[in-house]
């Protein structure tokens, strides 16, 4: 699409999204939509690591969880304000992203997958076992939500209803996705792709692959951590059961089906796979069976996901393909 057409479409979509709470009054549906926002962030963050750089991170749910716990603990035990806590949640997750990323630097393929899986499980076990800090398997209740925004003591936006949370996650998503988009279309995004294509060759064109790989993990960790922080102050209860390997698999399915390495892929995947369980209510025991099947079928028949399929369909019809998505 041409630049101006893109801008107009984006504004229309944004307008539509802003209008959503007027149309959707049912708090449960709104909740699903809010969750899809969280998963869009999670899928996009995983895409940075696994899609763009081609490094399979099977411990991604750990970043999600660390963000949630970090933000919660910083607010409830250290008394930080919630807004600061959420940012801290993201930053602390970055720290872990770097800590985990460093030993993973020399690893590739299956080695990397297993090691990140191990880190993910170790994190979850830590959540269960460090009871004084995390309250163990019981989780932490009564997490405060964000304070009302307003002047003096007149609240303009209070976080009592789902609507405010919706706008908050919308705001966070737009901010994060714009950032991710900027990164992907920049020189840094190109270095990610180069590492995916041929890491040794990337070194020989002047890319400091160590620095870039750590930066990549840090970025992926950050956005997952932000998603976790939001989750904590939205649902107001967290427990280790949320941040499991199964969750990582679900996020991976979102990225693979949506489109590995594309910008819109994880967005599409995140939305679809948050709504799908609702539609598949009747067959919820078969849900994971379906996900597994879809993941295998997708990687064999449409390795670039839905978005990749659409892209090649579109560029087959026009002179030049638009590579910036």
């Amino acid at each position: 699409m041409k630049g101006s057409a893109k801008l107009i479409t984006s504004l229309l979509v944004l307008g539509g999204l802003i209008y959503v709470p007027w149309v959707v009054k049912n708090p449960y549906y709104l909740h699903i939509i809010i969750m899809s926002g969280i998963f869009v962030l999670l899928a996009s963050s995983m895409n940075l690591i696994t899609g763009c750089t081609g490094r399979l991170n099977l411990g991604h749910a750990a970043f999600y969880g660390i963000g949630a716990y970090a933000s919660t603990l910083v607010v409830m035990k250290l008394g930080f304000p919630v807004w600061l806590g959420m940012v801290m949640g993201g930053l602390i997750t970055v720290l872990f992203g770097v800590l985990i990323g460093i030993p993973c630097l020399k690893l590739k393929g299956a080695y990397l997958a297993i090691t990140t899986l191990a880190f993910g499980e170790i994190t979850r076990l830590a959540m269960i076992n460090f009871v004084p800090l995390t309250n163990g398997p019981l989780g932490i209740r009564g997490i405060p939500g964000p304070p009302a925004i307003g002047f003096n003591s007149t609240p303009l936006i209070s976080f009592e209803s789902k609507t405010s949370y919706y706008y908050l996650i919308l705001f966070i998503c737009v901010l994060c996705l714009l950032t991710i988009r900027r990164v992907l279309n920049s020189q840094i995004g190109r270095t990610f792709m180069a590492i995916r294509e041929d890491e040794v060759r990337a070194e020989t064109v002047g890319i400091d692959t160590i620095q870039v790989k750590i930066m990549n993990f840090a970025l992926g960790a950050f956005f997952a951590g932000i998603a976790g922080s939001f989750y904590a102050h939205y649902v107001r209860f967290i427990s280790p059961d949320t941040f499991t390997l199964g969750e990582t698999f679900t996020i991976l399915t979102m990225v693979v089906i949506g489109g590995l390495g594309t910008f819109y892929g994880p967005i599409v995947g995140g939305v679809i796979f948050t709504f799908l369980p609702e539609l598949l209510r009747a067959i919820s025991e078969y849900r994971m069976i379906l996900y597994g099947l879809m993941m295998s079928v997708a990687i064999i028949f449409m390795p670039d996901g839905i978005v990749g399929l659409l892209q090649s369909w579109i560029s087959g019809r026009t002179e030049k393909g638009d590579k910036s998505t």
Partner: protein
Amino acid sequence: METILKAEGLTKYFGGLAAVEEFDLYVKKGEILSLIGPNGAGKTTTFNLITGLESPTRGKITFKGEQIIELRPHEIVEKGIARTFQITRVFRKMTLLENVAVAQHIAIRPTILSILFSPSERKREKSGLEKAEEMLRFVNLFPKREELATNLSLGEQKRLELAIALSMDPELLLLDEPVAGMNPKETQEVIDLIGVIRGKGITVFLIEHDMKMVMGVSERIVVMNYGKKIAEGPPEEVSQNPAVIEAYLGRRTPQ
């Protein structure tokens, strides 16, 4: 002329086998030097040692007076050495433009914060992309800049490799068999490009099997066999050297 690259006593063992043994080499600034020898003589290994893809078992390499053995490949690129690969290694699922632009990394030096917040960063990126386009024009691949590298023919891939190498702004360009598999017309195009490159003051060090090209283009030739240097000198001298002729069994590669 001053020496831009010097290798002394360069030795590389793989297991028990010496790929390169006590190899001494110097490259003069601004010259076109060719490295020839039968297959398996150690030529590509030498390139790998210079560019940091392998570490030598013994010996030293100095570039512009600095030791470069301990450096990582990307640091060697920063110092000013760029190379192409014998079997082309382009980034297949990226476009030509992206392939060349990514090699601007040292020029652009992005960090996350600069990407997000610095307006001069955007300018640097823009000029990086412009430079990438210029490089593609230079090797005559500009029309295909939005195509995926994997769609290129072999000759085009070799030219893309050249564009990638040049966009790193090297002082020393290492070309590993730049005309392998090309027809005479393509070969001549590459020879012309090398001439232009040389004219810009870039030192060219190349490996080739195409003798006609080597004799025509080089000012000086070094001959390797079994990891050792067996001859060195201007083309006329080297082509008469009995040891060289013997190494090739009196054969000249097809023209």
